[in-house]
């Protein structure tokens, strides 16, 4: 029977025929925990009688949400996790490398055809390398740490076929926001979003990561891009790998099939307080902002900062805006630094922080006061997400964020270049 890529991954790993709707216990190839959800997962592991984790080499640990520790209680949680890593023989990236999802991919801890779980909802980003990856809670993670497996239901897939060529200064973030606007915040609940088509094939890994990252914002269990030359080149630089064919069969069964042409797509903005409340930038242009955050697992990569530098040129950011720039990882930071962009951003008036989640989750620094407005390249604009419940967060691409940071109000990037 013709299969989707997701059905193929489960069939391959379980070594039997799996189709959407099947429920089974499947082994995982990797399990990621971080400083926010990790401590509870470790407690659950112990409560379930766990003594040794299933395979320390498959457990990925790092701290990214509240680093360097912003409070004594955060420091205690990190101390607790460090001692767990050391007693279990788990390699801990600690706070050195950056945002979990970026680090998992750039360290080669996810690869085509694998099943990876993480106790963070944006774990779905690893679909960018053709893995089936999904976010789970701490109890499920406690179970995984002990047994190395978890109950899964093979999801149906929605095929998202993307054609055309992006206009200048329009890209993956604008596309994925427009998709959220189209299918809604629960448009893919319990399903996988499979991204295909010429625009995806031409898209770099950074853009594919942005698309898969936001699958969860439509309720998706996973986002996935079938591996191609771009994927295998990325994975091959990071670990030993032998390319194999892993794509959906012709005639595979989909819950829905959506087709989009991005040739005339405009820069998109999600307005407060829902990710699926999406408009073309022109509809909100002129809205004054107090803060611009460029970073996160969604858009904190070199390619994003290259766009920011391209828009910025030799200008300065507005003195009326707090511009916070945070590369998603040490690797992305170094690339951005070596290209000379960091110096340019600092000269232009931005604060450039060390790799971490920053204001995205509203847990650490860069919080908003009541009545303040932020434009952010991250993935969520929920009420209270970046500080006060009376603050407002708009979501957009790095290019739109740069234009906005220069003008001090929401601005179409095509109008400032």
């Amino acid at each position, binding site marked *: 029977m013709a299969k989707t890529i997701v059905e193929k991954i489960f069939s391959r790993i379980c070594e039997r025929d799996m189709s959407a709707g099947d429920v089974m216990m499947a082994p995982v190839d990797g399990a990621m925990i971080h400083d*926010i959800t990790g401590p509870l997962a470790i407690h659950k592991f112990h409560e*379930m*009688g766990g003594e040794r984790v299933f395979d320390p080499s498959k457990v990925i640990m790092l701290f990214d949400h509240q680093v360097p520790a912003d409070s004594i209680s955060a420091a205690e949680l990190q101390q607790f996790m460090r001692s767990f890593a050391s007693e279990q023989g788990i390699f801990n990236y600690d706070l050195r490398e950056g945002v979990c999802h970026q680090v998992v991919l750039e360290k080669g801890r996810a690869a085509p055809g694998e099943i990876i779980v993480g106790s963070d*909802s944006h774990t779905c980003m690893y679909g960018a390398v053709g893995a089936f990856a999904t976010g789970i809670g701490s109890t*499920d993670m406690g*179970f995984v740490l002990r047994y190395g497996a978890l109950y899964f239901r093979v999801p149906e897939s929605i095929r998202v076929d993307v054609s055309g060529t992006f206009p200048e200064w329009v890209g993956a973030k604008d596309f994925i926001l427009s998709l959220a606007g189209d299918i809604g915040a*629960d448009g893919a609940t319990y399903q996988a979003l499979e991204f295909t088509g010429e625009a995806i094939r031409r898209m770099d890994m950074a853009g594919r990561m942005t698309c898969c990252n936001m699958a969860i914002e439509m309720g998706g269990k996973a986002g996935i891009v079938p591996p191609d030359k771009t994927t295998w080149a990325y994975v091959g630089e990071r670990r030993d790998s032998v390319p194999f064919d892993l794509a959906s069969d012709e005639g595979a069964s989909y819950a829905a099939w959506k087709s989009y042409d991005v040739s005339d797509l405009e820069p998109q903005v999600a307005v407060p307080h829902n990710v699926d409340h999406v408009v073309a930038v022109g509809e909100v242009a002129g809205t004054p902002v107090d803060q611009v955050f460029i970073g996160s697992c969604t858009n904190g990569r070199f390619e994003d900062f290259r766009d920011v530098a391209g828009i910025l040129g030799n200008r300065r950011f507005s003195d009326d805006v707090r511009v916070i720039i945070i590369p998603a990882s040490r690797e992305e930071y170094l690339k951005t630094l070596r290209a000379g962009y960091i110096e340019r951003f600092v000269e232009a008036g931005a604060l450039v922080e060390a790799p971490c989640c920053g204001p995205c989750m*509203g847990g650490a620094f860069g919080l908003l006061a009541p009545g303040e407005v932020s434009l952010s390249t991250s993935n969520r604009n929920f*009420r209270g*997400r970046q500080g006060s419940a009376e603050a407002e967060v708009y979501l957009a691409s790095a290019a739109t964020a740069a234009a906005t940071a220069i003008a001090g109000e929401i601005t179409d990037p095509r109008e400032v270049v």
Partner: protein
Amino acid sequence: MNGRGHAVCLGADIDTDVIIAGRYLRTKDRSVWAARVLEDLDPSLAARLQGAVIVAGSNFGCGSSREQAPVALREAGVIAVIAPSFARIFFRNAINVGLPVIEAEGVPCAGGEEIAFSLDEHWVEAGGMRIPFRPLSPKMQEILAAGGLVSFWRARE
């Protein structure tokens, strides 16, 4: 498993950041989560959740995978959440921590009025109506009856 409590009515797309904000995740103290639950929606809600049945709109629990969200609701005294649909990770987390979640359409909600439910017979009673819902799988019902996945799993071993 049956239950009854007073109704608390909420809208659609209640996300896990609103259920328990990121600023309260740097602790393991469950009483903090219980006291701060739904604070960004309405700071007075937490005090009204003891013995409550939440009736919400669609896509309840969307967003972050934080299991602190269903734990906070349960610790605050919520005995069940009823909604037309739930976000996937929240739904699974709720079952795992022993918080009953009921996927039911068209349940009328009048704040403070009594609302009853039966997980075994899969119905909700509210506003003088008995509304059937799609039953949870037998395994999920067993996990809820045990009070969550940890106690369910420990009893099996």
